[in-house]
């Protein structure tokens, strides 16, 4: 258990509304990640953070923004949700060994 929680776990929202997903960790890890998982595409990196206020884009960052104002929280925001952003979103942290990532339980987001 890497001490990662995600909230909410499930959300249904309408097209055009803003949505923020939260990832919280309790073990002071420097690196945090946001992925989305879709059938046929696997896990794709949206954004990642390598420290407080330090973030960078992943392969599918369009339409998403992130913020990290403190070590334990990494927020993912959809400024104006679209149906193509319906997905399962996972947060991950990088463990002490630089190769390994540990995942949260996921947030299932449906945009109608």
């Amino acid at each position, binding site marked *: 258990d890497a001490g990662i929680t995600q909230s909410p776990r499930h959300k249904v929202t309408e097209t055009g509304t803003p949505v923020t997903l939260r990832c919280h960790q309790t073990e002071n890890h420097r*690196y945090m990640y946001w992925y989305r998982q879709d059938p*046929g*595409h*696997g*896990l*794709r*990196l949206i954004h*990642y953070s*390598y420290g407080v206020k330090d973030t960078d884009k*992943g*392969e599918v960052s369009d339409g998403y923004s992130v913020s990290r104002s403190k070590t334990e929280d990494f927020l993912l925001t959809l400024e104006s949700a679209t149906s193509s952003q319906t997905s399962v979103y*996972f947060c*991950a942290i*990088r463990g002490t*060994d*630089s*190769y*390994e*990532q*540990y*995942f*949260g*339980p*996921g947030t299932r987001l449906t945009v109608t």
Partner: protein
Amino acid sequence: TQLLEQSPQFLSIQEGENLTVYCNSSSVFSSLQWYRQEPGEGPVLLVTVVTGGEVKKLKRLTFQFGDARKDSSLHITAAQPGDTGLYLCAGHNSGGSNYKLTFGKGTLLTVNP
């Protein structure tokens, strides 16, 4: 873009059978991880392999990293219904960022009682 191709995409077998799933790339990876994901949950790390030719065992699961560090396999002996899940391989590209993983699309394994 560094790709990891997993095969087969789907696998349905009977309890007690053996199986092997594969993870292949044309690129060299400095390390490779295998994860298992159950429905409604996040992926859980099973193993990390870092040395070409390395073999690791986890109970009935055997993981191998190819000599050239471009491929890996997962062999399950005497599969049980509890082995059902999505198996994902992921790797750090040699010479690339240590901070990011490339994921395969996974093998969905169903073990029938």
